[in-house]
């Protein structure tokens, strides 16, 4: 069974949709960006549910992408320091 729809890439970025599609294992997704629109095709059982799950997860992923943009420097600094300390190397 297949379900097709279109969403605005301003709300659901292609990157977030791709990340979400990797996480959801029960459906096969096909994503195509055409200008400000992303075309979504969902295949599998209950593809309409798969479509809703995809959009939910994409919002979660978008939130993480946005957070990464603001916090990645400090987060990477702390994580790198912890790993280098465990390796016995200077940062």
């Amino acid at each position, binding site marked *: 069974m297949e379900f097709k729809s279109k969403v605005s890439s301003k709300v659901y970025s292609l990157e977030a949709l791709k990340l979400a599609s990797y*996480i959801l294992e029960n459906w096969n997704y096909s994503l195509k960006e055409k200008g400000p629109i992303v075309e979504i095709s969902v295949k599998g059982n209950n593809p309409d549910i798969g479509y809703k799950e995809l959009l939910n997860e994409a919002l*979660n992923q978008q*939130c*993480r992408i946005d*957070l*990464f943009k603001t*916090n990645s420097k*400090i*987060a990477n600094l*702390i*994580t790198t*320091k*912890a*790993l280098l*300390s*465990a*390796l*016995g190397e200077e940062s």
Partner: protein
Amino acid sequence: MAIKTKGNKSKIKQYNFSWRKIKDKVLLTNEFGHYIILKNEEFKSFIDGKLSNKSKTWEELQVRGFLNNYMDFGDLCQRWQKKNSFIYAGPGLHIFVVTLRCNHKCVYCQSGAVGKEKNNMDMSWDMAKKSVNMAFSSTNKNITIEFQGGEPLLNWDVVKKTIEYARNKEKSGDKKLFLAIVTNFSKMDKEKADYLLKNEVSICTSLDGPEKLHNKNRIFHEGNSYKITKKWIKYFKDKHDAQKNEKYRIFKPSALLTVSRSSLNSFKEIIDEYVDSGFESLFIRALSPIGYARAAWKTIGYNSAEFLDFYRKSLDYIISLNKKGVKIKEKGAELLLRKILKAEDPGFLDLRCPCGATIGQVAYNYNGELYTCDEGRMVGWEGDRFFKIGDIEKSEYKDIINSSISKGCAISSNLDNQPMCNRCAYKPWCGVCPVINYELQKTPWGNMISNYRCELYMGIFDYIFELLTKEKESEILKSWVEE
């Protein structure tokens, strides 16, 4: 909840904090681990920019680093560094699962133990020796080797040889060694007990409450688990209390409480049991839905609200005992209070950012497999080796630190990478567990909005801060970290 500081056009842009309602007050916290609890009116005038800069509250906010334009970075950075000292250390805890065999069949067993008659479930001496060498390769100056199982005394010869080898290695190096064993005491005898004491091995056991409850949780067909446990707790406690000029230190024995569904209505009896056994603390830990416990969750588990109700009642009862002069504290609260009040790292690897997986601890399985932590090993025992970081026969120390899963756990447990945690008022002292996230939400990142463990810690922090707003209760809680 965090207040945005960048691009915010309101008057609060100069302030840097997260906040949370605590009953009729507001808790403000910041990255340096400072907090302040304000009345609603104070909070409102603070965020409206109307708080007088001559008020005592303004002064306190300034000293604690809540005002961006008035921050003493020397002091504040020192506090941050002290609070997060573990990121400069490397793995200190080395868990040796010397056997998976056990003669108990506990209803909640999370460790993946098998019957004592099973073959090929013991760590060999050769493997144990290599594991000690790996542990001593750590960059951490303080090494703790903790013997676990199964029941570690079922592989006594290897435990004994490992202790001797590790103690000798300590003498020839620059590291301080701590040894600990987690045992159900069923195979303990005087010879073993005295050997452990002479080698300064700290003793930890399980005590789940009064006899009926303990034996219901900790099923033992060869005798009465409760009576055996109590007998040996007394033995080690008496040795500790009587020590005078021994050439070795005798540590006070400790016990772990595991709260199952059967425990929920017995908080008073459990705490009284600990007081009666001479313990001055007990650790009220929630069950983790991993390994065997996950499969049996319907009969032994509970939801976070049920556990938190138990926790609050227990803490109230412990505080009421303190008011009567009884010396007893709750270990979990004490750990959090050390972080909150003293900006210390109490060595509790479950609540670190990043978490302790590999960079704070390593689990050495009986068969040579190396895991990020004991919880990761339990997932491995279920057949999913996602948290495996190496093999003692093939891996060098640097390999396990450099493994992709070690790095993955460090990245995913960094709260600055977690959408909800990043804004949480408890972020300065909290931590997430990639293993529990993976088990419950199928990703080490987890999703905190519906996360069982997050609900638990959120509730525990809420209650501790609620108690800190009460004069007498606050005094008692503060006394727990003053010793």
